[in-house]
């Protein structure tokens, strides 16, 4: 019987392999697919060959492909994602500066998604095939079909333009943004609390409502489906019948016996959830004009800054791999039966 320790070691060994595969994939996409970064950078302008050669050398593109690959891997290993082609800033610095914005959006979206997803999933799973179940199922299919950016725009229209309940764009009011600097964690909500500035905290929360609701609702559809199916399957189990027949209250059966076990398979898909979350964050940031990682990526694409594009994609790849590893780990810690 292989033990817990061995499982963790296997995962630990496999994570760098996955990361290497992703890094190679990014490298191949950016280098091998037709379309020359330098030509793209020059945008069709004709320049003297020596200028073009200088650009090429600056990107290291004059070296053989395997040398480029090696340079690429070793600099990433040193945490160096290169310098932006536009303003020569280190991409790593830019990413570290932008990431808290995306993280803040992600954290609040996950909270909302968990609340709605687990809630609706439990209601639907308990009342399989009854009206509430059908309503929630239909709602979830509707969410699945809704473009996230459209949901965000509709929220802006209804709660921003028509009702004036919440600010439409940005993370803080412009005046607050000038005076307040989130220089501890980079998260406005956390930093304002640490500094004891409640005005900023409320303002940050008000700006967070619509973006995180948009992203959270989209994610909750997925979570709701999984919760529903797993709860339904768990409620069919023998030990649930036993629990019921020994006279436990329905609440006790559902929440103490069933939901805890149903939660285990739900955990496994949380990693996948994170991938959807980051994709959705790009669109949400674009709609609400948040200066996060997604915004940075789109900016880099518009400016044809290949080093910045590569850096962002690599960062996301690393982040996803680490999240997946942690999910696996938590999963095996939660469920004592998991032995690999």
């Amino acid at each position, binding site marked *: 019987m292989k033990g817990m320790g061995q499982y963790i070691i296997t995962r630990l060994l496999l994570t760098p392999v996955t990361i290497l595969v992703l890094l190679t994939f990014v490298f191949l*996409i950016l280098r091998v697919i037709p379309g020359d970064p330098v030509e793209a950078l020059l945008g069709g302008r004709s320049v003297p060959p020596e200028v073009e050669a200088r650009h090429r050398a600056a990107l290291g593109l004059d070296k053989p492909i395997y040398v480029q690959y090696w340079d690429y891997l070793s600099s990433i290993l040193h945490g160096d994602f290169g310098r932006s082609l536009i303003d020569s800033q280190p991409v790593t610095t830019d990413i570290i500066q932008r990431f808290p914005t995306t993280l803040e959006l992600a954290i609040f979206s996950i909270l909302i998604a968990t609340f709605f997803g687990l809630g609706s999933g439990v209601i639907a799973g308990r009342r399989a095939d009854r009206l509430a179940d059908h309503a929630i199922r239909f709602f979830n299919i509707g969410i699945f079909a809704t473009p996230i950016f459209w949901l965000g725009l509709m929220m802006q229209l209804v709660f921003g333009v028509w009702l004036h309940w919440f600010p439409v764009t940005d993370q803080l009011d412009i005046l607050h943004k000038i005076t307040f600097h989130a220089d501890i964690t980079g998260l406005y909500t956390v930093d304002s609390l640490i500094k004891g500035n409640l005005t900023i905290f409320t303002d940050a929360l008000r700006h967070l409502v619509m973006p995180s609701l948009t992203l959270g609702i989209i994610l909750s559809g997925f979570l709701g489906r999984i919760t529903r199916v797993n709860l339904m399957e768990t409620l069919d189990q023998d030990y649930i019948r036993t629990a019921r027949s020994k006279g436990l209250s329905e609440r006790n059966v559902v929440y103490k016996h069933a939901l805890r076990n149903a939660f285990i398979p739900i955990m496994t898909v949380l990693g996948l959830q994170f991938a959807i979350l980051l994709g959705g964050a790009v669109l949400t940031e674009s709609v609400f004009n948040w200066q996060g990682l997604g915004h940075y990526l789109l900016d880099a694409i518009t400016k044809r800054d290949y080093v910045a594009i590569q850096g962002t994609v690599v960062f996301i790849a690393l982040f996803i791999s680490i999240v997946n590893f942690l999910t696996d780990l938590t999963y095996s810690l939660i469920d004592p039966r998991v032995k690999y």
Partner: protein
Amino acid sequence: MKSSPLIELTAEELEADLSRRPNRHRIAYFFNQLWHHKLPLAGLLLVIAIVLVNVFAPWLAPFDPTTQDQPRLSRPTQDNLMGTDALQRDVFSRVLFGGRIPLIVGIVSVLFALTVGVLLGWVSGFTGGIFDRSLALIMDAIYSFPGLILAIAVSAILGRGVLPMTIAISVVYVPTYFRVVRGQVFQIKEQEYVEAARALGSPWLRILLRHIAPNTMSSILAVAPINVADAILTEAGLAFLGLGLAPPTPDWGFDISNGQQYLLAGDWWLVTFPGIMIILVSLGFGMMGEGLSDWLNPKRRRG
């Protein structure tokens, strides 16, 4: 926006049941279930309706979608059912034409991903060994990466246009088919009838194509419509971010992006109507897929 939760939950359990059920009754059974489950039928009708609208758009549209001869930013009126945009074009006409690119990109990219993913899955699952394991590792890595960001990165390199967009989106879905098919090939190749074919000296290609491949098709059938819905949403996302198309192409996602700047002034019609169309078409494909996977998976079939 890679979310195929519907499939995620069912794929493993599919084959065990399908191999038990006799082939001949399957079609009758399908239609029986189709009537009992109105959801996929409604989805199919919805998809057909939207496809027809886009095919016959030149005859249905009251105005040319690119000619700028309407009032500027007019609210919906009797003449302009969905209002007009800032470039004096009729929104209703643009909405009728605007599904052509999403539908083509969505369907073609999934067909492309399906072909590549299924072929790789068959070969990989059948051969096994180090080749299979390396390929699975690569596919898993791509699968774990955010689909939309992958599509953004690829289309940033390939540039604008329908073909680049189709390729960028199809890259996202190859691992989905690979995973589903490979898993099934693993199960099927251990079955007795495959063993028997092997014992009788059938060549491996024949075993793969005659005995294994056909039994993997049903689950692919369930995955495909949901992926088309997802691919259409990804296309809309790319177009919205300005990565897909060049003006003045009518396209739902692209038109929403162009209408965004007028939303804050209260001009709601530019964004609302194309968005409803995107929802309807992905709802249609989603409901089709939902019904198909219900039908294919007895555990989830109810009533």
